[in-house]
């Protein structure tokens, strides 16, 4: 079998390795600066207030967390769905998943008003709260995916890796359902209150995770001079296109349903028509750049590596836009306490809430990317994550092409 | 290699022992000025060892169960122990709470929310926390 001929090797770490690590380190320091400023002075120095209570850190953290779940996709395709051609790609997939989750969770926890109370969060539980359940889901995620990664790397344990892969797949579906439900359970806000948000987040995770995986794989292979064949690229490209199409489907159904309910016309008009930056990010960021452009780039004949990677970057931009529209847009639309009445108050009832992210909270959010990047870069150097060759001949010697 | 192990252990011990002495001489020993002579709710030895447990359990009884007028009351402590000079239990290393807590380097979380100064009650109709 072709797979037994594949050897895994850590990257050499020459070239721009330490430069890249230093750059990520600098971004991490900026994130730390943002955090310490926020922790010391309070959220008064941020763009968040009592109307927009979750801001840029949550946008970035949730993107990372959702993408983390999806980054495990490639590994699941091998272990759960038995597509053995993806098996050499699985270790990097699991590691990327852990790294992105670590980065996202760090940002989320550091944005807490009382981040010194993490022990309280870990010892006092209200099990009706999605956040409390998340403590277990996320801890379990690290344990299970960590075990899965180890079982894949430790050759003597390889026969258990499929079982771990199935467990990881089920666990992360539960986890992402929970993430979507954080919003879906909120009956108070018109932009949320929907059971569709949970499966939608799962499908979005497939797209974001696979896109980030492709970017990481291509970057790692290029940096270490390892060949990346077009067989595996084409397979990943088609997988990615399917996920993007499915994402577009879910978003369409979500908004069409909301448009059917007369009581939701206000919030839909806000998001789709006159919400300013929210509308711009929805149509341009999420739909055009996040779905339409990648579909064109990926599905039009003659897709080159450059086109595929451009599509991946576009999906990431679309993902961040989607999170902004969901999180900020959902808060910007005022609560409708008295339907049929126009409200006015000193607490901003009845008016659209604006949000201007500050530097400190943006730094904190970007620090999450830095954490994920540093983990991946160091892991590639220390662990044997990446196959030596992923070209056509190695992966599929009998392929006619 | 027992000798290597012993060397490593000694190195670790030294690494741990040094910082322990780093702060000696910089933080003054606690100065407890008792502004209102009289009886605290328990003898000093008991208070020193258990005031944190008393507060931790009473706070739940007061807040969650609605118990009022209990023997243990943070406002009660403050009314009695606040320094006459600053009117507070914080503010200098000679003030009651801060004095010991600065010495043993245990961060005081209470006063992020609780008022450390006396005489700040808004309602006119209460004697507020007088023991």
């Amino acid at each position, binding site marked *: 079998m072709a797979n037994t001929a594949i050897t895994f090797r850590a990257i050499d770490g020459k070239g721009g390795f330490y430069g890249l690590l230093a750059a990520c380190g600098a971004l991490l320091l900026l994130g730390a600066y943002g955090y310490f400023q926020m922790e010391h002075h309070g*959220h008064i120095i941020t763009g968040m207030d009592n109307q927009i209570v979750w801001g840029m850190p949550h946008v970035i953290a949730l993107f990372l967390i959702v993408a983390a779940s999806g980054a495990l996709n490639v590994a699941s395709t091998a272990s759960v769905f038995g597509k053995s051609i993806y098996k050499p790609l699985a270790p990097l997939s699991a590691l990327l998943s852990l790294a992105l989750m670590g980065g996202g969770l760090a940002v989320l926890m550091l944005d807490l008003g009382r981040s010194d*109370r993490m022990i309280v969060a870990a010892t006092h539980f209200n099990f*009706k*709260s999605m956040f409390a359940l998340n403590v277990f889901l996320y801890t379990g995620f690290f344990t299970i995916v960590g075990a899965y990664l180890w079982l894949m790397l430790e050759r003597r344990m390889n026969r258990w890796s499929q079982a771990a892969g199935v467990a990881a797949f089920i666990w992360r579906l539960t986890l992402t359902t929970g993430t979507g439900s954080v919003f879906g359970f909120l009956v108070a806000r018109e932009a949320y209150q929907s059971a569709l948000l949970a499966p939608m987040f799962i499908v979005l995770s497939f797209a974001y995770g696979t896109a980030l995986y492709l970017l990481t794989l291509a970057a790692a292979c290029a940096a270490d001079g390892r060949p990346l064949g077009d067989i595996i690229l084409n397979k990943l490209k088609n997988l990615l296109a399917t996920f993007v199409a499915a994402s577009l489907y879910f978003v369409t159904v979500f908004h069409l349903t909301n448009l059917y309910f007369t009581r939701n016309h206000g919030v839909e008009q806000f998001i789709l028509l006159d919400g300013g930056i929210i509308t711009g990010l929805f149509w341009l960021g999420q739909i055009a750049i996040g779905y339409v452009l990648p579909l064109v780039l990926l599905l039009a004949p003659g897709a080159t590596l450059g086109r595929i990677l451009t599509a991946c970057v576009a999906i990431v931009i679309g993902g961040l836009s989607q999170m902004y529209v969901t999180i900020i847009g959902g808060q910007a639309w005022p609560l409708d306490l008295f339907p*049929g009445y126009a409200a*006015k108050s000193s607490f*901003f009832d009845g008016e659209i809430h604006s949000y201007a992210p500050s530097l400190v909270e943006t730094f904190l959010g970007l620090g999450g990317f830095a954490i994920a990047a540093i983990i991946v870069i160091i892991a590639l150097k220390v662990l044997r994550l990446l196959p030596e060759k992923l070209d056509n001949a190695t992966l599929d010697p009998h392929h006619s092409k | 290699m027992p000798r290597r192990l012993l060397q490593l252990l000694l190195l670790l011990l030294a690494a741990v022992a040094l910082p322990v002495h780093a702060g000696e001489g910089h933080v003054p020993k606690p100065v407890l000025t008792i502004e209102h002579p009289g009886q605290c709710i328990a003898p000093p030895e008991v208070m020193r060892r258990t005031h944190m447990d008393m507060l931790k359990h009473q706070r*739940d009884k007061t807040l969650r169960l609605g118990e009022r007028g209990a023997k243990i009351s943070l406002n009660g402590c403050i009314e009695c122990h606040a320094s006459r000079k600053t009117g507070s239990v914080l503010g200098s290393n000679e003030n009651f709470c801060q004095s010991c807590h600065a010495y043993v380097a245990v961060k005081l979380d209470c006063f992020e*929310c609780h008022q450390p100064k006396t005489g700040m009650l808004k309602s006119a109709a209460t004697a507020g926390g007088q023991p």
Partner: protein
Amino acid sequence: MSEQQTPDAGRRDFLGATAAATAAGLGFVALAPGMQLIKFAEANASTNAATGQFASSKVRWGMLIDTTRCATGCTDCVTACATENAIQPGSGRPGQSSQWIRKIELKEQKTGREISLPMMCQHCAEPPCVDVCPTGASFKRADGIVLVDRHSCIGCRYCMMACPYKARSFVHEPLTQQNPEVPRGKGCVESCTLCVHRVDKGEQPACVEACSKGEHTAMLFGDLNNPDSEIAKRIATTATSQVRADLRLDPGVRFQGI
């Protein structure tokens, strides 16, 4: 590697098993007093509640607001709340200042009819803020008052996202001028406490007292469970409504004249 059990291996297994059993036993012993204490506290609570020393579920505190008597432009209740609870305007943007009660001026879009009313935490019987709080800091007391336990609040603001009445505020900066009876601080979420520190002394919330002393007398406070209280009698005879009643949260605050 030989499968033969050497005496040392047998001893190792025995030690391992004993250690595991001891650890499990110690773990249980460590937990058991905690579990005992919880039972002890619960038993105590129910006994004391009967004697009236603790908040009791026999009582349900509520408010009735007569919007026909509430005047546009009058903010007596807001001022009284700010004074009582020592809520000062923040040093940041206006949107970052805490507001436990606010006056909402309403105008019916089709008819132009105007209404003025105060809005604060509705002290729901089924509070969504309590459901979503990860640490259980947001809780409902036995007598119906919904509070934030700032000892466990981690400042995640999930309750602020969940509240259908936008009742909660987040403290964005360090505070120093708190009322000793109303602890509040940076990084925790807060909302109207129905002046629990006054109610427990047998007084009325500051907003109700201010409104009663003023010329409007639009606010009434009392025990919804007591059929002889004025509020219960008014609710049983006059038309009143709850805000966003379709959500079935059963708020303790009712309005007349909407």
